[in-house]
């Protein structure tokens, strides 16, 4: 099972319901992804769920670190497509 760190932005003025979208995505990924936080270890992929295109938390990530970063900034992305990106190997 793939291990992915889930990180939300702070949610100051979201343009969509981040939690509702995350619930859909997490439900679709059940059994395929083990979710952890950035404080944990053992992941090489991060799913960032942002409330708007400003994507604030990405600024804090170390650009030299070899994480694979998948970002969501609205609820138009199909969960299955995001899951495919998260579980794919070898691509940024």
């Amino acid at each position, binding site marked *: 099972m793939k291990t992915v760190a889930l*990180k*939300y932005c*702070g949610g*100051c*003025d979201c343009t969509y319901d*981040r939690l509702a979208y995350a619930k859909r995505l997490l439900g679709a990924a059940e059994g395929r992804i083990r979710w952890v*936080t950035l404080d944990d270890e053992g992941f090489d992929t991060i799913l960032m*769920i942002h409330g708007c295109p400003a994507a*604030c938390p990405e600024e*804090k990530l170390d650009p030299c670190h070899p994480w694979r970063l998948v970002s969501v900034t609205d609820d138009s992305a199909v969960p299955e497509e995001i899951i495919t990106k998260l579980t794919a190997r070898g691509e940024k």
Partner: protein
Amino acid sequence: MKKIVTKEDYVQSLKDQKVVIYYNGRPVEDRSAHPGFVPHINSAAKTYELALMPEYEDLMTARSHLTGKKISRFTHIHQSVGDLIKKVQMLRLISHETASCYQRCVGFDALNALYMTTYEIDEKHKTTYFQRFEAYLEKIQEENFMLVGGMTDPKGDRSKRPSEQADPDLFTRIVEKRTDGVVIRGAKAHQTGAVNSHEIMILPTQAMAAGDEAYAVVAAIPLDAPGITLIFGRQTNEERKVEASIDAGNVDFGMVGGEALVIFEDVFVPWERVFMCGEVDFCGTLVERFATLHRQNYGGCKGGIADIIVGAAALAARYQGTLNASHIKDKLVEMTHLAETVYSGSVACSALGSKTRSGAYYPDPLLANCTKHNITRHIYEISRLAHDVAGGILATLPFSRDLKHPEIGRHVEKYLKGIQGVSTETRMKVLRLLENMTGGTALVESMHGAGSPQSQRVMYQRLGKLPEKMRMAGKLAKINE
């Protein structure tokens, strides 16, 4: 103090700390459960609740530069421009959750102003305030207790300096210096969140001059220290909080922050909690920094509150069938414009922030003052437009008991109904929310909180670079004299 993590920890800590408080002429036995205080407690508790939620932690928490630990952002010292912006974003977020004041920004701003200023006092006077202050900062970051920023003195005759007042206690002062500490006498007025806080940080209320040394005092004092008495301020419609009905408007979170007069009758403070004692040359700097940091906030918190007013006005219009009228849509657009204008001021003064010698970051003071000055106007205009959109019913609604009455309730239901499919009670709820947020104490707070408009205009005179503007104009006009 035991570390406060959850809302439950916070409420229990208020119960455990016995503070002398009077409400409407009576002493309060249990401040954690008093109906006059519970809405304000709920608002402040949101700052603890949201910090534990992964979807908000990026704004609500930060890494301590002292310990590297994750801490509440309300105890953080700004380490970058990004931190200054996150502060504003955090305030807008919490306003969306409470539509009220959650009070912790005052202590937050006091901590940051003191971090910068004690560092510079020590540089000049070879004192050790900064070291003491860092120890205090580490304590509050670890324990996460709630701190009142105690700035405003009663001030008596405003035409006279502190040391010239007929009653010397009208500015908070040191009445005795001992080997183990100082003794404080005086009062702090309009203290937001005081009845549901744990400590107060007293600060000088204005710039001081030679002769005012006794008034140049900064000290952190637990609110249960012997000699402290709090008298809660009466608010518009506060009896509705006791009723706990829909008439309260914002039932869970109340109106503004809950202010109190805090009186110090010869309160002893040990030296390790004293961060300024007689350095009159730094009072002006400290006041200006605190004011700038506090004025920075208002486009965030009031911008967020304005978002709720816009939403409530739109709901009120929908419930009475006017939402699609062009003039209503235009008023909602204007309200949105004003809300985003105040928010942009807070973001702008943060984005142009700079590093102080202590390492802490500080917003642009001219833009921060401009932000707060806009609040003294735009929140009134937003509220005026909300009243316009809502209609006269906002001021003439009957009691919720009338709606529930077994005999006359049917009349209220029938004659105050708007569109089909929406109950009269629903319509009344949103109108009461608007009433709560746009009148009385809520408006006055926008005018005078973080300093009255004139105090911002004084800053414009100081920071507005008028000679430079005259020089530029003269150059373009080719004036050679």
